[in-house]
């Protein structure tokens, strides 16, 4: 929890402080998740030596330039920052999330690695995950019973939804918006939209806390609670647009914009139209 608040408070400081906190946080994440996941059952991926070897080959070609030949991280020449952090102990879940959502391999250095079409197929992603998992213990890829809302028994579904909504509004909306449509963070960073994100990746995001996002370890948010959150997020997606077109679900700003453009714009248009159609103008036409 202390870690979580440290990450959150970065929002209120200068952007530079944010970077420092981020870097410290990234180092810290390794440590925290390493200790946490020592409790987790053995990673079956890492025990498949053939897969690990295949992953290492892929890693050397696609990732080593930034993360180092042994995934130890590469520090820039001036020593202040990194091309890529060490991946020892980040776990298979982090790799699966980063690679399957297309964030890694990072294409060009920017404030934040954006989501893009995945470069590696499922098999290769598994191999990369296995390789990184073999470097040190870390959170493993969740199973579908863990993340899939469909695995919630029917009689508990409603309760789960309500609970998930509470967790979501308490922990996630500050960055991701009430409808999961995303929000801005300092320094050009942003929390992306959650609409259309795979349940598995939502779970992994909570588990590994990519970049500015805090880690919601299993102590903070139990696996069932993570699944509840996912159920709620998915239910928002399935909601019909009760009120009509949501205008981006960005809150009152887009409402005001539409009120002025369509509402007042349209009404002033009508006023011009009415004033132009008078007895007078008809007379003028006849004259």
């Amino acid at each position: 929890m202390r870690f979580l608040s440290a990450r959150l408070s970065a929002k209120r400081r200068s952007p530079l402080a944010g970077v420092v906190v981020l870097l410290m946080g990234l180092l810290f994440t390794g440590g925290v998740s390493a200790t946490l996941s020592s409790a987790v059952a053995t990673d079956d991926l890492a025990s498949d030596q053939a897969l690990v070897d295949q992953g290492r080959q892929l890693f050397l070609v696609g990732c080593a330039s930034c993360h180092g030949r042994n995934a130890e991280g590469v520090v820039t020449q001036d020593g202040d920052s990194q091309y890529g952090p060490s991946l020892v102990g980040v776990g298979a879940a982090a790799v699966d999330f980063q690679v399957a959502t297309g964030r890694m391999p990072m294409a060009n250095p920017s404030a934040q690695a954006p989501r893009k079409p995945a470069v590696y197929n499922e098999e290769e992603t598994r191999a990369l995950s296995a390789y990184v998992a073999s470097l040190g213990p870390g959170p493993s890829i969740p199973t579908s019973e863990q993340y899939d809302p469909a695995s919630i028994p029917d009689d508990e579904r409603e309760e789960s939804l309500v609970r998930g909504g509470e967790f979501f509004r308490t922990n996630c909306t500050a960055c991701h918006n009430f409808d999961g449509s995303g929000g801005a963070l300092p320094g050009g960073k942003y929390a992306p939209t959650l609409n259309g994100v795979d349940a598995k990746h939502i779970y992994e995001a909570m588990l590994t806390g990519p970049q500015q996002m805090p880690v919601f370890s299993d102590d903070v948010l139990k696996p069932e609670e993570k699944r509840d959150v996912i159920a709620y997020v998915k239910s928002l997606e399935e909601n019909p647009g009760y009120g009509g077109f949501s205008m981006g679900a960005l809150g009152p700003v887009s409402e005001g914009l539409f009120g002025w453009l369509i509402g007042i714009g349209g009404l002033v248009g009508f006023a011009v139209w009415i004033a132009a159609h008078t007895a007078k103008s008809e007379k003028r036409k006849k004259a």
Partner: protein
Amino acid sequence: MSSIQTNGKTAATATKPSKAGAAATWVDDRVGIAGAAKKNIRKVFPDHWSFMLGEIALWSFVILLLSGVFLTLWFKPSMAEVIYDGSYEQYRGLHMSEAYASTLEISFDVRGGLLMRQIHHWAAQLFIAAMFVHLLRVFFTGAFRKPRELNWVIGSLLLLLGILEGFTGYSLPDDLLSGTGLRIADGIMKSSPVIGTYLSFFLFGGEFPGDVIIPRLYAIHILLLPGLLLALIGAHMMLLVYHKHTQWPGPGRTEQNVVGYPMMPVYAAKAGGFFFIVFGVTALMGALLSINPVWKYGPYNPAEVTAGSQPDWYMGFNEGLMRIMPAWEYEIGGFTLPLSVFLPAALLPVVLLSVVMFYPFIEQWITGDKREHHLLQRPREAPNRTAFMVALMTFYGLLWAAGGNDILAVVFRLDLNQITYFMRVAVVVGPVLAFIIARRWAISLQRHDQEKLLHGYETGVIMRSPDGEYTERHLPISEAEAFTITARDREEVPALTSGEDVNGVPAPTARKDRLRARLQHFWYADNVQKPTRAELEAARHHAQHELEVHAGEEHAADGHQFDGRHDIHGEELRKH
């Protein structure tokens, strides 16, 4: 009714009255309504689209009253905690306030409830927006000048009350955004020196949020403010009828008359029709566009906050000010002075409103113009006034944008911090630039008018002289247009005074006089004065001469129909 229209010379013959007629006579005998109605039915309203902007506000207010009454039938203004058991699945079993639960009920379990909620909310946004555009039209045309200053002040009060009405309404459902908004209002109150805490505790009946604020806001929202609004709108309309509406200058229109259509039937039909249009647009928006989806925000919980927390647009400038304000906080003798909240959120809005409200008197003081005005001015005819409002609009608009900085950052992939730095500079520099540009622009338009008066308008007909020179033909503008353009007064540009009498003794009010003289000079000095009669006549003479010179020339190209040598009736090259 026929008996009403007698000219008074012949006795009205009693015909057998119809039932309705009899009823009308019965009422008339007792309250004398016919006399008043006769006078008002014959009231004349000039016709211009910009005169209908106030009507948008009026009709949206009517829609607000109607839809608001519907909502009161189900809304429960109570902060008592209940367990939700309605049809919105995601919240069933959740603890929430009765206010929030009843809002969900209206949205999901009352037939037509969501539509009504959305109509009500859209109408509120349109109401205030319409007041703004109405205010702008009154301002830019100088319609606030004597004798209408009082109606302008009433208008400004309506604006303030409208915004408060909107804010109290926004706070009622007790959803996450309304609670966050109240929390900010609480913070703003507490930021005021000395009285802050008392004020907050008084309003919330103790520490925020307490459990009385929503019932209290409810009383204010459905009783106090609508009552005041209604009374002030009544006064606004009565003054309007009493002063009569202003009109644009034109042939036959003077400071003494009003040219337009009588209240009955033309104007009433138009106004009545416009009501249905406003209602139609609001209903369409209510049906198609989602507004304030409280079920997505969730019940208010002080521990929660969401990205996209913004007030409705009319509080956006305030939000923007707070977002870009540097964190100035000082401690004086053990008391914290949170200037970063007090200045932008409490002081500046009051200053802004006061400037708007007292503007007619400020302008009057500068120009010393105490005459009555019933003819409107075009924005270009008062460059400083126009530029002042453009500067205010720029300031307001930039703050609006700053209030949505996070949305701008997300939608346009910008850096949140850089938006803030940019806005801090822009809100100071932008209005100054806007003032200069608008002022020069207006003066250029004055020059253009002058050009048209003295040299005619550009016909688009290019003439080639025998020695190869190309020129464009100018033709005199119509009498009516010339009349309209010259309807304004010539202004005396005052000399700068030193505020001293001939003996060099400064008058007791010397400083004030000097300031005023300087302002007055700035106000008028750069304006282009309309031509004198002699100048106009000379120009006319010149134009006549031109026409004679060119008489008899042959033309083959399009445009020759405008050479002024034959009837141009029905000819058209370009509209003018």
